[in-house]
């Protein structure tokens, strides 16, 4: 995979929409918009009433590319590694790690930092460092 171009306008529009979603979830439903937590709640039968917002939220996230393709005239560009085994290992680490660490990019990185959560500051520092280090090792050491 080669380097991708810097796209500041798209980055700012996209980031603003992500933030808008987080604010609306708090304003309307009083919940943290943390994707790993929202997914994790589906495996947690202790409070079934939580399904009534978790499921439609996740459906929206999954089918968003259909609206994206309709609005822009083309599907989003998704270029992933063709190594299925690598993607399987990565997926397990992401799901297990984010759940064990009580959050991912959205929960800790957006909502948690916006609340000045000490746990989120620590988690973001660790997962960003781990991701930078992993890419460095994969692309420049191995």
């Amino acid at each position: 995979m080669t380097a991708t171009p810097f796209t500041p306008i798209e980055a700012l529009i996209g980031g603003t929409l992500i933030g808008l979603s987080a604010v609306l979830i708090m304003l309307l439903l009083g919940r943290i918009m943390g994707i790993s937590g929202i997914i994790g709640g589906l495996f947690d039968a202790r409070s079934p009433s939580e399904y009534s917002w978790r499921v439609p939220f996740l459906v929206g996230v999954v089918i968003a590319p259909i609206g994206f393709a309709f609005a822009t005239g083309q599907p989003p560009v998704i270029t992933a590694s063709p190594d299925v085994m690598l993607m399987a290992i990565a997926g397990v680490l992401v799901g297990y790690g984010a759940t064990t660490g009580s959050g991912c990019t959205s929960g800790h990185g957006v909502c948690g930092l916006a609340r000045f959560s000490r746990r989120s500051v620590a988690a973001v520092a660790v997962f960003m460092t781990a991701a930078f280090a992993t890419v460095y090792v994969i692309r420049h050491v191995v």
Partner: protein
Amino acid sequence: MKNATVIIAAFLCGLIFGFGVLISGMANPAKVLSFFDVAGGWDPSLALVMASALAVTFLGYRLVLHRTHPVLTTDYVLPGATDVDGRLLFGAAVFGIGWGLGGLCPGPALSALIDGGQSVATFVFAMLTGVAVAKFVGRSNPPIAASHEQNA
């Protein structure tokens, strides 16, 4: 919390989030990995995505959390934990390694699913498995899973 308004609101918020990650490029593993590749052809876009998302959320939360209760529900459910413990740091490290390997974090992975082919489908299935395993392991260690909403 079981009415059509909640369902529609949650669905629309999911769509907005999905549009955000798709427009920003966060759902494209190639772009995410370019951001993390500081020693290669660095693409700083993701820093702007996170900065703008954080700025909007910070300002929005300041306005929203002054209200006595959310519009459609009775109470705010906010994480109460404050301790930076080993479990948090271990989980974050494991998550970061996975993010660096695959270029996808949980939300963007879901928005990449339809157009991402076999690689992304495999990632998402594996990710859901990882969440389920962590939930199962967490349940056998009850002191940590005291609240049903401990995620940040």
